[in-house]
């Protein structure tokens, strides 16, 4: 469904993503893993249209991101790391604004907002301003933002970063529930989470792909049971 071809991104002289190629199948939950600064966020930002690639391209089905950006944006819901939101807005107003920009039908809008509020357990904070919310709630608003308009593809950049164990469990549960019918790309530093959720993992280090397979296949290939050790071996952590 998503084809990433020879993707390269330079920030000045620094090469953040270096000729990356991989595919994401429809309905798959793909874990994009790697140490901090490996280039994961840059790939997400290119995929969601926030940044332009220096060279290479991304195709979603037959649409090239350089030519059909708007069409692709409509199909992708994005949760950036630490969900930066408009602090002064009410949660309801914010989600209403996102629904409008996502082109959610006016007749269905209220029902859709309530459905998302239920799914992300936001009902009790809908009329609070975003700066009053705890980190966990902000993250849930970010997830509701990503799910708005029911996009087919979800890109979640460290959706559980900085949350407490209860919030991590809740967020994971939301991802698990929505993951049944969507294509999901997500990253995490909690490797057990990747093991539990992903159909396949792509591991990148210093902008290059170092592994692209299922976790079981990687175990066999490297003859090692612990995914943490595999990860450290592949990303030069050892």
């Amino acid at each position, binding site marked *: 469904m998503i084809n990433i071809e020879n993707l390269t991104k330079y920030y000045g002289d620094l090469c953040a993503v270096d000729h990356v190629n991989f595919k994401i199948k429809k309905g798959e939950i793909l874990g994009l893993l790697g140490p901090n600064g490996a280039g994961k966020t840059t790939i997400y930002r290119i995929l969601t249209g*926030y940044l332009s690639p220096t060279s290479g391209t991304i195709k979603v089905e037959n649409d090239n991101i350089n030519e059909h950006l708007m069409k692709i*944006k409509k199909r992708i819901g*994005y949760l950036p790391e*630490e969900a930066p939101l408009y602090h002064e807005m009410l949660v309801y107003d914010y989600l209403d604004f996102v629904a409008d920009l996502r082109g959610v039908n006016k007749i269905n809008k209220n029902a859709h907002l309530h459905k998302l509020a239920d799914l992300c357990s936001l009902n009790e904070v809908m009329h609070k301003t975003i700066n009053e919310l705890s980190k966990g709630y902000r993250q849930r608003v970010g997830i509701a933002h990503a799910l708005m308009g029911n996009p087919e593809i979800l890109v979640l950049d460290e959706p559980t970063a900085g949350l407490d164990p209860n919030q991590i469990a809740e967020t994971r549960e939301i991802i698990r529930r929505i993951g049944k019918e969507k294509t999901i790309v997500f990253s995490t530093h909690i490797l057990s989470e990747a093991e539990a959720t992903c159909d396949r993992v792509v591991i990148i280090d210093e902008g290059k792909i170092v592994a692209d397979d299922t976790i079981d296949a990687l175990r066999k290939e490297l003859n090692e049971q612990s995914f943490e050790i595999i990860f450290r071996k592949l990303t030069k952590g050892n």
Partner: protein
Amino acid sequence: MENIKHIFKKEYKAYFVSPIAYIVISVFLIIVGWLFFSTFFLDRQASLTRLFTLLPITFAFIIPAVTMRLFSEEINIGSYELLHTLPVSNQEIIIGKFLAAVAFVGAMLAPTIVYAVSTAFLGDLDWGPVIGGYLGAIFLGAAFSAIGLMASSLTRNQVVAFIISMAICFSLTLMMDFVLFFLPNSIVGFFQYLSANYHFQNIAKGMVDSRDILYFLSVIFLALYGTGLILQEKK
């Protein structure tokens, strides 16, 4: 078009949920009121000329305060990333934000209509220059808003955005007075044409000339186009 409306609505509302709008409007009305009424009874003329004479210089530091947050704040907290990854184009974001700033300038000017009405009670007010003055004020406000928006897209620091746009707006306002003193007559005309104050005063006399309108439209277009290029460059 729909997206422009949604961005406009959100931005316009955002002005009034923070105290900034009320502070800016109050400061504007106090300054303009004081400048206008301090000599109003001495002049003994039922005219708003003085209000419009001083408007460009007041706008040159009030409007940068109105526009400084439009992009800087978003870039700083990172919400621009969320906004930009929604199915909305750069042009729609820019125009929506620009129109919200112009609408805010309109809301800021609206209470000064009281001055016109009360002046009309005191004497025989010529409404031509008053209407011209307000029309010119909207064009001037729009041009300065576009410049402010461009400055705001340059930096994540609102204070820096404020200073850059104030410097440009002041230069455009004061250009006419400076060139008359320092430059030879042969090139004064050229610099006069670049001065926002010169075109504003023409309209404020009650004469709506297409050259003056064209000047403001050009400034607005160039500044908004520049904003688009700056945002594109950040990608």
